[in-house]
């Protein structure tokens, strides 16, 4: 799972006219992970302490001079290096005030960039393709520089990769529409030229990102058509470059969705082995706007996190030590992110769920790929062939259906979709349902009068939908206050993001009970709530008949509240359900949703104090109820388990700890909860003590008869 956190602005960017992306020349790592070096395209180099969001040093060049490449920090000599006017290399230290007074050297050829990696000498890359170590170059600045590239070959992009004490310079060039990648290795110096595979419709890669994993360099590059390819280059190569031009093998690792608008630029940066950050490409469900920063999982091709960036995006993106640096509008923002180790479960919705609900979830979208057994396949192909012969004309193709959805009335759509679901073979349905749902949602969003709830329910019942396929469905349902649809979706989807879960929770808690009772809900869940509350009233009636057992801890702690009702059974729960039946049923659904606690916590903080208190009251009610009526099993398909309830109590307390500590109305609630938990802890501690003895009794019982016994054995 990956997440983008709330970002902040590092600095403003003076946009330069008639240039697509030259607001900032580059952002480079400073002397430690908290410092970055921002070179803007005017004349200024600034060091920022990122955590403080403030500049700690700034240098600028004289009027008339131009900074021609991003400044870098040489970690070996603790000096900054920049090139001005293509040929003048300037080196200065942190405490040098004036750049003009710093060391400078003029070299004999145009410098493209100075590349610096941690703990190694910076490398100077010349426009002609030659490379020199900085110290060797400065020793004799006027040394002749050879021409490596052809006359009209231009370097488009370059980077340095360092691993295992091996430096590798990568740069891509363009020459008359042909794109090549050069790999410069040191010790021994080799330069290998690779040609990018080209397809007629593809132009050039627009963005590159290289990382080193193991003994290979992984180069990711992005094309304008949204394809992200990966090429793997060995860190150490035996080839000397003498073999001529090698083809660069590649594999497609991500195909980004394209909007209608024609894209001009975009950028990709690798975050870890499974995640990439992309800017300049539209969010798959947010329509035309492309000002999104997205994190995609390349293993599962899923969108993991996204953030809308205000203002124009320049297709520039840097990533240093867990933070993304993205210039947009008139500012450079820092966005911390986190990528957790991805598993299929995490990528699709974490599935922390246990207990009885597991079986009902097993037929969700994910597992349906594997659940299709051989017989299934044969069956569907049979049906398919039968259909193909019989009513080929009757069943609309998906494309026809989608065209139809765009225009037809709700009733027609409902009939069409119903027919489509019935007639389409399972395997095809799986692929089609998502498209149909997407189309329905986008129509509903634009057309306020169009909201085919029954169709959505039908689609959900196929169980081929999941949150990732159609993320907007849930938010649409919440906007429309369609709690029934939400409930079914929460039952079926296993990959609902924590943010959406919290939004739904908020919706439920903010809806009044009276409004809620009118909603038509899943009967099973309502039955469960009825049973739960009835059990309470019944135990009120039958209170006296239970035996005289009474938990001493509970009694002593709660005696002040119960003293006036001592005649009643102390076990009977003196508590009514703090929320209505329907609200309880919906909350139960939320409790059973899979989540990861860390991403959930920040969203949980959005709840208001009264909402928190109501929810906590309900959780306390459930918890007490479960503990008291542990012997009663209420028959229902889906019930929250006691561990789920406790987990949510913990989460809620964690998220609102300070608020609950000071809110006067929460005091009673918290202290009740505390007393009860304490008594439970005592009880379980006591139970833990006898466990050992019971175990011994159990194991010894059969064999131990002492020194002598007279037994009867029978042989057959």
């Amino acid at each position: 799972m990956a997440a983008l956190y709330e970002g902040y602005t590092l600095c403003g960017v003076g946009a330069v006219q008639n240039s697509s992306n030259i607001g900032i020349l580059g952002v480079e790592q400073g002397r430690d992970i908290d410092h970055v070096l921002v070179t803007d395209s005017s004349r200024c180099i600034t060091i920022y302490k990122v955590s403080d969001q403030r500049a700690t040093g700034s240098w600028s060049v004289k009027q008339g001079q131009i900074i021609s490449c991003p400044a870098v920090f040489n970690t070996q000599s603790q000096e900054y290096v920049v090139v001005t006017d293509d040929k003048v290399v300037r080196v200065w230290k942190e405490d040098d005030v004036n750049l003009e007074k710093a060391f400078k050297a003029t070299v004999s050829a145009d410098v493209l960039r100075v590349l610096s990696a941690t703990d190694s000498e910076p490398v100077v890359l010349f426009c002609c393709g030659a490379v020199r170590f900085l110290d060797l170059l400065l020793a004799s600045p006027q040394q002749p520089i050879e021409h490596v590239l052809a006359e009209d070959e231009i370097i488009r992009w370059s980077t340095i990769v360092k691993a295992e004490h091996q430096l590798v310079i990568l740069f891509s060039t363009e020459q008359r529409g042909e794109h090549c990648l050069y790999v410069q290795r040191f010790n021994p110096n080799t330069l290998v030229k690779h040609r990018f595979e080209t397809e007629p419709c593809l132009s050039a890669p627009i963005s590159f990102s290289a990382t080193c994993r193991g003994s290979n360099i992984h180069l990711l590059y992005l094309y304008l058509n949204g394809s992200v390819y990966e090429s793997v280059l060995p860190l150490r190569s035996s080839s000397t470059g003498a073999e001529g031009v090698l083809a660069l093998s590649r594999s497609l690792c991500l195909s980004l969705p394209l909007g209608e608008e024609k894209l001009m630029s975009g950028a990709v940066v690798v975050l870890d082995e499974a995640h990439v950050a992309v800017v300049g490409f539209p969010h798959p469900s947010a329509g035309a706007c492309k000002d999104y920063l997205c994190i995609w999982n390349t293993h599962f091709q899923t969108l993991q996190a996204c953030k809308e960036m205000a203002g124009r995006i320049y297709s520039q993106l840097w990533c240093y030590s867990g933070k993304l640096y993205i210039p947009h509008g008139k500012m450079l923002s820092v966005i911390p992110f986190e990528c957790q180790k991805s598993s299929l479960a995490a990528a699709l919705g974490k599935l922390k769920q246990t207990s009885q609900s597991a079986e009902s979830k097993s037929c969700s979208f994910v597992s349906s790929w594997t659940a299709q057994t051989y017989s299934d396949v044969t069956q569907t192909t049979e049906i398919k062939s039968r259909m193909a012969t019989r009513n080929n004309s009757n069943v609309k193709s998906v494309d026809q259906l989608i065209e139809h959805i765009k225009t037809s009335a709700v009733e027609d759509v409902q009939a069409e979709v119903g027919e489509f679901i019935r007639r389409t073979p399972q395997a095809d349905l799986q692929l089609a349902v998502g498209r149909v749902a997407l189309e329905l949602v986008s129509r509903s969003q634009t057309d306020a009068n169009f909201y085919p709830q029954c169709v959505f329910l039908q689609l959900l019942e196929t169980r081929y939908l999941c949150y990732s396929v159609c993320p907007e469905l849930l938010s649409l349902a919440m906007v429309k206050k369609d709690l029934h649809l939400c409930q079914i979706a929460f039952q079926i989807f296993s990959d609902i993001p924590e943010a959406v879960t919290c939004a739904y929770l908020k919706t439920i808690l903010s809806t009044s009970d009276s409004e809620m009772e009118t909603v038509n809900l899943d009967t099973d869940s309502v039955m469960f709530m009825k049973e739960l509350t009835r059990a309470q009233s019944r135990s009120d009636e039958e209170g006296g008949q239970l035996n005289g057992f009474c938990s001493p801890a509970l009694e002593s702690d709660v005696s002040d509240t119960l003293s006036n009702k001592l005649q009643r059974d102390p076990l009977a729960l003196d508590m009514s359900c703090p929320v209505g039946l329907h609200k309880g049923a919906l909350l139960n659904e939320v409790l059973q949703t899979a989540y990861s606690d860390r991403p959930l916590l920040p969203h949980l903080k959005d709840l208001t104090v009264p909402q928190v208190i109501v929810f906590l009251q309900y959780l306390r009610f459930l918890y007490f109820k479960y503990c008291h009526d542990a012997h009663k099993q209420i028959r229902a398909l889906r019930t929250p388990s006691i561990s789920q309830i406790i987990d949510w109590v913990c989460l809620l307390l964690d998220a609102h700890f300070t608020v609950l500590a000071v809110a006067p109305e929460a005091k009673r609630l918290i202290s009740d909860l505390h007393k009860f938990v304490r008594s439970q802890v005592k009880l379980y501690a006591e139970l833990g003590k006898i466990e050992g003895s019971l175990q011994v009794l159990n194991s010894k019982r059969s064999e131990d008869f002492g020194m002598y016994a007279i037994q009867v054995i029978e042989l057959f």
Partner: protein
Amino acid sequence: MGEFKVHRVRFFDYIPSGIRALAFNRDTERMAVARIDGSVEVFHCSDRFFQEKIIPGREQCGTEGLSWVGERLFSAGLNGGITEYDLTNQKVKYTIDAYGGPIWTITGNQQGTHLAVGCEDGTVKLFEVNEDKIQFERNLDRQKSRIISLSWHPSGSKIAAGMIDMIQIFNVETGHSIHRMLADRGVGTSQSKECVVWGVVYLSDGTIISGDSVGMVKLWDDQTGTLIKSHNVTKCDVLALSVSQNEDSLVAGTSEGTVVQFQFVSVVLGKDDKEWVRTRTFKNHTHDIRAVEEITTAVVSGGMDAQLVVRPLLDKIEVRSAASALRKIHFPHRRLVSCARKSGLMLFQYPGHLELWRLGESEGKGLPGSSLFVKRNPEKLLHLKVKGEDHIHCSAVSPCGEWIVYSTASSLRLYRLHCDNNNISITKISKLPKVLSSANQLCFSSDSSHLISASTQSSVHLVSLSQAGCKFVGTLKPKSGSHQAIHLLATSEDGKWLASASSDHDVHIYNLQTRKAHCTVPVYSSAVTAMGIHPTTNCLFMMYADQQMCEYSIEQKQYTDWSRTVQRKGLHRLWLERDTPCLNVMFNPQNPSHVILHDTYMICIIDQSLPLPDDKTQFYNQLTLKSLPEEQRKSHSHAFKLCKNFKDILCVELMSDQSLVVVERPLEDVAAQLPAPIKQKKFAT
């Protein structure tokens, strides 16, 4: 088939004695085991490790070393004497004093001409082995500290001696020391503790291998007297070393209970440069390993936990079989309990005393699997201490419960028990016939009128018992064959027949009425472990160490048809794979077709009227039969009915009231009485 009332007895506090030394005779494939109580046992390695011979120990014996010279067995101990054993009659032949104080080690050269002993006073004494005795020859140069371990060079010209903090190499010719090699003490706090070289092995290529109290196995060169290599094997002591015959494998026993194997292998494949490389570690003991021997296909080890462990080396075994499985021998292959069948008494034989117990009584009846209410608890009637230092060799109580007899190496004592109401008294029968000076095995005739004592030269003495005393009746001798000691005796119910089995596998049958040898059962390659004469048919039923069984008709002097059928069809694989010998054969007078057998882990009733199982039938079928309805059981049952409810069985006896006595000695109880092992740090403790 039947219910049995079982007296389950666990109050026999038998503690096997720890193993102190092992000696393997490659020619005869016999393993001699010396225990801490001074007893010496001989196991037949190629006959399922059957315990052929037991020579009981004596107090204050302190055996420290064992050595074979040819087929003669010698031991030496802390009492300063060297003992030779008479293996034929299973007793001590003679003991001579070496006059060097306590002896720590004894070893014979490969030529079989000399014995060397290492003494407390720092001398290595050489004894010449003569025809019938040993003769002191001379001392090697006397050293300052005691000699702990010795090893001859295979040529017999040099001896390596392990001492405290050093190893000496002696030239046997001159008696002078050639080299002195210093063993390092441990580091740190153990620096002040001396390093005891517990074991040395002298290889034919001149390499000397030593194991010491610092936990090192060290390799030395005898030419230069230098250390070649050292292996740290343990944090505690390396107590025992043994090398294989072809000197390509070495095993070291440690006080942690592990056996570490080293092999002489070429480090680079295909090259001749061989090195001693530590290869395997076996852990089968809980306590110190005091002795270890590598035999042809296995490593045999023994130590303070009193079990003899035979750990097969699977790389040297061609066919995996029951004979090549891991074997742990906990209990002697002799009966230590005898029961008075008609009066409900049990006689427990401890090394130094006898205990007589009366069984308890139950009340009412119970369902199979249940325990009955014990109306009267078992009662210890008698505690009879042995006179003298010798340990008991054998003992018996008569079926009527009136007579008790036991024998040590030097004397035989017969007692008469008087039991009126609760007053128990015994009288020793004095003036025993001279022939009853000692016995290898004792038994009473079934009517308790005669005592039968197996004596030297395979002879059996018959003594009649009466109120007045006892009277020598006669001596029975086998017509021919060897004269190995008898280890099993069986009388027939009618008092007519007597069968005797000796350790060279001879089984002789005598007619007690005519007092003549009747016949000899054809000799089988395996030793007889138990036998009994059927009360009605007078057939001799014999169990062998290789788990075969034979039934021999005494009257017809031939194997019975059933026995031939068994031999023809073969026994079930699972039966043959059992690794403890059957120790008793009993018959159920109410059902003549039933033979009751037991070993350490099971009781088996063989119903000779039922079909024999073949390898396809389910052998352990009691649970299946239990679940079947009565009428179907018949079709599923076979001749072998095994009861595995009991384990660590020392004795099973069928009493005349049809109840079974099962004497168990749970190994946990034995372990609880052993001294604490070396404390080893376990994970998370």
